[in-house]
C-alpha cells in the first residue's frame, strides 16, 4: 500500500509540532527562577524554544532529506527540473517568519513592560530628579548617605516603580569597583560585600560604578544591568524563592573580571531581621563612612583577595572603607 504524499506531510507536521511543544516546555536549560518576573522571562524563552525547535526540525529535516533523496547517481549528467520559483510558496515563507516575529515582538513587549522596563521613573533618561528625591527620603535618619556621582544624570534600568506598589522597597546602594560589589543599606547603615534581602518585598538597587563599566547580574532573577561610571542605574526586583544566588559581573572590567562575584541571599523575613540585627553597626561608627575611590591604589594582592577567598570580599573591602573614612577621602 502506498501512502499518499499529503498524508505523510500531515503526519510529519503533527510529529514536529508535538516534539516542539514538548521540548519547548521541558528543555530544562534555565536555572531556578527565583522571582515572578523571572518566570515571565522563562515563559518567553519557552515560547521561543518551541518555535525554534519546530523550525530547526523542519529545515534540518529538509536538508537531510535532500541529502539522501536527491543525490546524483553516478554518471548522471542531466539537470534537475528547472523550477525558478513558486510565488505562493514564497509568499507563504515570507509570511511565516513575519507572523512569528510579530507575535514574538508583542509578547516580548508585554513581558518587558511587566518587568517595569517602560516605567517612566526608572527607565527614562530624565529620571535624575526623581532619584534625588528618593535619596532625600531615606537619608534623614542615618545621615550616612553616600554621595552618588552623577546621580543627577540619568537613571537607566528596569524594575517597577517601587513607590507605586504600596510597600516601601528596601533601598540598597550598590557600588561596583574592580573587582568587588559593595552593598550599602541606608536604612540600617550596614555595609556589606553581599546582598541580603527579604523575599516578597521589592528591593531597589541604586547602582553606580567606581572605575570602569561593570554589569550586575543575578541569573536566577534573569536581571542584568550595566553599571556605568558617571551614570546612575537602577534595578527593582522582588525575589520569591529563598536561597543563595550568585551575583556576577557581566561586563569585562579587567583581568580579574571572572573573579568579581558575590552572593545574593534571599532571606525569609525572619532570617532577614536577624541578619540585620547581627550586622547593624553602632550608630556612631557609620557616620563618616564613604566609599573608596577607584582601586588604582590597590595592590595586585588586594585585587585577588576577593577571588582567592571566595566570600572574603567583605573583609578586605570593609578594611578599605575604614581607611578611606579615616582620611576623610570622600568621593
Amino acid at each position, binding site marked *: 500500500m502506498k501512502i499518499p504524499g499529503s498524508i505523510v506531510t500531515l503526519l510529519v507536521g503533527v510529529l514536529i509540532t508535538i516534539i516542539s511543544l514538548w521540548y519547548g516546555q521541558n528543555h530544562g*536549560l*534555565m536555572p531556578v527562577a527565583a522571582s515572578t518576573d523571572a518566570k515571565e522571562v522563562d515563559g518567553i524563552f519557552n515560547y521561543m524554544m518551541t518555535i525554534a525547535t519546530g523550525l530547526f526540525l523542519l*529545515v534540518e529535516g529538509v*536538508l537531510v532529506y535532500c541529502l539522501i533523496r536527491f543525490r*546524483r547517481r553516478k554518471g548522471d549528467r542531466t539537470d534537475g527540473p*528547472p523550477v525558478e520559483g513558486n510565488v505562493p510558496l514564497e509568499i507563504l515563507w515570507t509570511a511565516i517568519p513575519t507572523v512569528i516575529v510579530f507575535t514574538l515582538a508583542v509578547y516580548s513587549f508585554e513581558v518587558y513592560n511587566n518587568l517595569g522596563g517602560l516605567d517612566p521613573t526608572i527607565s527614562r533618561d530624565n529620571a535624575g530628579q526623581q532619584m534625588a528625591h528618593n535619596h532625600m527620603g531615606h537619608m534623614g535618619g542615618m545621615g550616612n548617605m553616600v554621595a552618588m556621582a552623577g546621580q543627577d544624570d540619568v537613571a537607566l534600568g528596569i524594575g517597577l516603580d517601587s513607590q507605586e506598589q504600596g510597600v516601601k522597597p528596601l533601598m540598597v546602594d550598590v557600588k561596583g569597583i574592580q573587582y568587588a560589589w559593595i552593598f550599602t543599606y541606608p536604612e540600617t547603615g550596614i555595609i556589606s560585600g553581599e546582598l541580603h534581602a527579604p523575599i516578597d518585598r521589592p528591593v531597589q538597587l541604586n547602582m553606580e560604578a567606581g572605575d570602569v563599566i561593570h554589569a550586575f547580574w543575578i541569573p536566577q532573577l534573569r536581571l542584568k544591568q550595566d553599571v*556605568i561610571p*558617571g551614570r546612575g542605574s537602577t534595578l527593582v526586583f522582588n525575589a520569591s524563592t529563598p536561597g543563595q544566588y550568585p551575583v556576577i559581573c557581566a561586563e*569585562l572590567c579587567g*583581568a580579574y573580571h571572572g573573579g568579581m562575584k558575590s552572593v545574593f541571599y534571599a532571606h525569609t523575613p525572619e532570617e532577614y531581621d536577624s541578619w540585620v540585627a547581627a550586622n547593624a553597626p553602632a550608630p556612631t561608627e557609620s557616620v563618616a563612612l564613604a566609599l573608596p575611590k577607584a582601586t588604582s591604589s590597590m595592590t595586585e594582592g588586594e585585587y585577588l583577595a576577593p577571588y582567592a577567598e571566595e566570600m572574603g570580599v567583605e573583609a578586605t573591602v570593609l578594611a578599605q572603607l575604614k581607611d578611606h573614612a579615616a582620611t576623610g577621602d570622600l568621593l
Partner: protein
Amino acid sequence: MTIAAENLTANHPRRKWTDYFTFCVDHKVIGIQYLVSSFVFFFVGGAFAEVMRTELATPDPDVVPPELYNQLMTLHGTIMIFLWIVPAGAAFANYLIPLMVGTEDMAFPRLNAVAFWLTPPGGILLISSFFVGAPQAGWTSYPPLSLLSGKWGEELWILSLLLVGTSSILGAINFVTTILKMRIKDMDLHSMPLFCWAMLATSSLILLSTPVLAAALILLSFDLIAGTSFFNPAGGGDPVVYQHLFWFYSHPAVYIMILPFFGVISEVIPVHARKPIFGYRAIAYSSLAISFLGLIVWAHHMFTSGTPGWLRMFFMATTMLIAVPTGIKIFSWCGTLWGGKIQLNSAMLFAFGFLSSFMIGGLTGVMVASVPFDIHVHDTYFVVGHFHYVLFGGSAFALFSGVYHWFPKMTGRMVNEPLGRLHFILTFIGMNLTFMPMHELGLMGMNRRIALYDIEFQPLNILSTIGAYTLAVSTFPFVINVFWSLFKGEKAARNPWRALTLEWQTASPPIIENFEEEPVLWCGPYDFGIDTELVDEEETVQTLIADAAGS
C-alpha cells in the same frame, strides 16, 4: 578538454609565484593575496583560540595569567573579524567580480592593490602589540576600561583597525564601481550572478558604516594619548556614546562578514544541485533589505547599557525584522536543493554545513533580539555560542565551500575529494562540539571574557575544549589538501562543474587578461535544466575555441 585547456594557457604568459609578493595590480593576484594572507591570520587567531580553550578546560586561571587571557581574547576576536573573515570576503570579491561581469580588471586596479597592501601592515601592527602589552579590553574596546589598561597596546589596536578599515572602504568603492559600470553589455542587473548582488549590498554597508568606526576610534585615540574626555567619565565624557558609535559600525560589520558568503552559497548550491536558484529576485533583494535593516539595529548590543526603555523596544522590533529576509534566503536555498541532482563533493558538503549551522545561529539570533531574554543572556556564553554559529558555522563554512568550489578555477587543479570530506567531517563535528555547549553554559550563568569560572561549569567546558581541539585537527587535512592539490592535483578543465557563470568561460587558471575575447552571455547564470543541451553545447563550443587557440 583537459589537454585543450592546457594548450590554451600555454600560449599566454602565466603569473610567477614572485608576483604574489609585489604591488601587482591584477585583480586575480590581489584576490589570491587576500585569500592567502587571511588564512595566515586565521591560523594565528585559531591558535589563540586554542590557548583560550585550553585555559578554559579548568576553572582556575592556571594555563595563562588572566591578563594574557584577555589579550589573547581581544586579539582572537579582532584577528578573526578584521583579518580573516572580512578580507576573505574581499578575496572572493576581488577574484570573482571582474570575471563574473566579464571584464579585464577592477575599475581602479591600483586602488585595489593599495587596499590589499594596507592589510598586512595592519595585522603585523596588531600582533606586534604583544611587545608593548597587547590590548585587553576585548574587540569592542569599551572605555573607560580601554583607557586604563595599557596605553600603547590599545593605540596599536586602533591604528591597525584604521588601516584595515581604510582598506575595506577602498575595496568597497572598487566593487561597487566594477559591478555597476563594467558589466559586459548583455548583462543587466537581473542577469548578474547573485554573488555580485551580495557584494553590492556588502559594499554599500561598508561605505555607510566604516567611517563612523574611524570617527569613534580617532576620538578614543585622543582620549588615550591627548587626554581629552570624549568618552572618559573621569573628565565628564560619556562611555555610552562610544558604544553607540562603535556598534553603528560593528553591527553592520556582522553583515559585512556574512553577506559575501550568502553570495558564495548562492553560487555553489545551484551548480552542484543542477537546478536554477530558487527565487533569484527574492535572494537578490533580501541582501539589500538586510543591508538596509542592518543599519538600524545597532543598539541591540546595548540592551543592558544606558539605553532607555522605548529605544530598546524600537531596536528589538527592527532586529527581529531581519529574520524575514534571512528566512527567505534559507528557504530559497532549501527550495533550490529540493528535487535537484545533488553532487555531494566537498564544496557542497560545506554548503550543507553552512545551512544547518547558520540556521541555529539565526534562531538564537532572533532569541537574543527579544529584550527580556537578552537581558538574561547578554555578555554570557550563550551569546558567544550564538555568534560563533553565525561566524564559524555560517561565514567560515561558506568560505570553505567557496574555496573548494573555485579552487580549480584559481589554481588549475582539482582538490583531493577524500581529504576535503575528512576536513568537512572534522570541522562539522568540532564546530558543534565547541559551540553548542556554550549556549547552555550561558543560560546557567557563565559570563563571557573570563579566564576563571565556577567548578559547576567545568563538564560542559571540557566538551567545548575537546571540540576546539577537533577543530584544530581539522585544519591539517585542509592544509595538506591545498598543498598536495596545488602540485599534484588532477589538472582542472576550464569548467569542471559545468557551471554557467562567466568565470568558468575562461581557462583555469584564467589568463592574465581574463578572457581571450569578450565572453558571451549564453544564458542566465543559473539556467540549469532549462535547455538541457545548453551546458553541453556550451562545453563543445568552448572546447572548439580552445582547440583553435591551441593549434
